[in-house]
């Protein structure tokens, strides 16, 4: 893992969602996250990758292993050039789902992770950053 501390996966089809899940599972397991935390991180990644396939058409997941002093973390950034989220604040509110009832969306992902940052511009795209820190 030392040589490769970051990378990216293109997301276009539902097969790519599985690739994202496998990669994230591999990284999180290697870093030493608990079984439950691995499930949380992989599920969060799966939700965000699916949002890209469903709403943006295509995008990318950039993964980075964070090392800050004694802390180790996994950072995943999902970027797309899709339609964007009209009201990020509303989308982050619990119980909000975008129209066709797809997913519990972003609030669920936020709960599973330690940090989450959403940036979106209508017509330009969306960038979502999520981080989980390893507790020793």
């Amino acid at each position, binding site marked *: 893992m030392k040589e490769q501390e970051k990378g990216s996966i293109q997301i276009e089809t539902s097969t790519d969602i599985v690739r994202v899940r496998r990669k994230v*599972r591999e990284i999180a397991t290697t870093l030493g996250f608990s079984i439950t935390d691995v*499930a949380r991180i992989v*599920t969060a990644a799966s939700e965000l990758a699916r949002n890209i396939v469903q709403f943006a058409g295509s995008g990318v997941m950039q993964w980075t292993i964070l090392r800050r002093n004694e802390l180790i973390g996994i950072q995943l950034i999902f970027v797309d050039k899709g339609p964007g989220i009209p009201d990020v604040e509303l989308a982050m509110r619990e119980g909000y789902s975008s129209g066709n009832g797809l997913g519990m969306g972003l609030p669920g992902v936020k709960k599973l992770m330690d940090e989450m940052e959403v940036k979106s511009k209508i017509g330009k795209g969306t960038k979502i950053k999520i981080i989980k820190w390893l507790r020793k």
Partner: protein
Amino acid sequence: MTENLSIIKVEDVLLATIPSDPDDETIAKLQDGILESMKKYKVKGVVMDISAVETMDSYFARAIMETAQMVSLMGGETVIAGMRPSVAITTAQLGLTLKGVHTAIDVESAMEILRKGSQEGREKK
């Protein structure tokens, strides 16, 4: 790539074993396979063994609920068996509930639930 998926008839119940990380295609096949097998074998219920499943996102959870509804429309009952603790924690935190779907700790208990269900049905008659 589609992971192996097995649907077999055990007594008068269908036992569907879900692979650890199914893609959308596998999930769609599962739905079709269960409904086709229900018609073919005229079973009274379906046990979905998810003990191998490591990740359940909202799409997967919704597909399970939808399948259970379809089985119900055809006159059967569905029991989800063997959810891992890590999956249960994640699914609940994500805000997903498998509303209207029976759950059991393992396949054996799931079979028991379906057996009891049909007994109650007979007693009512």
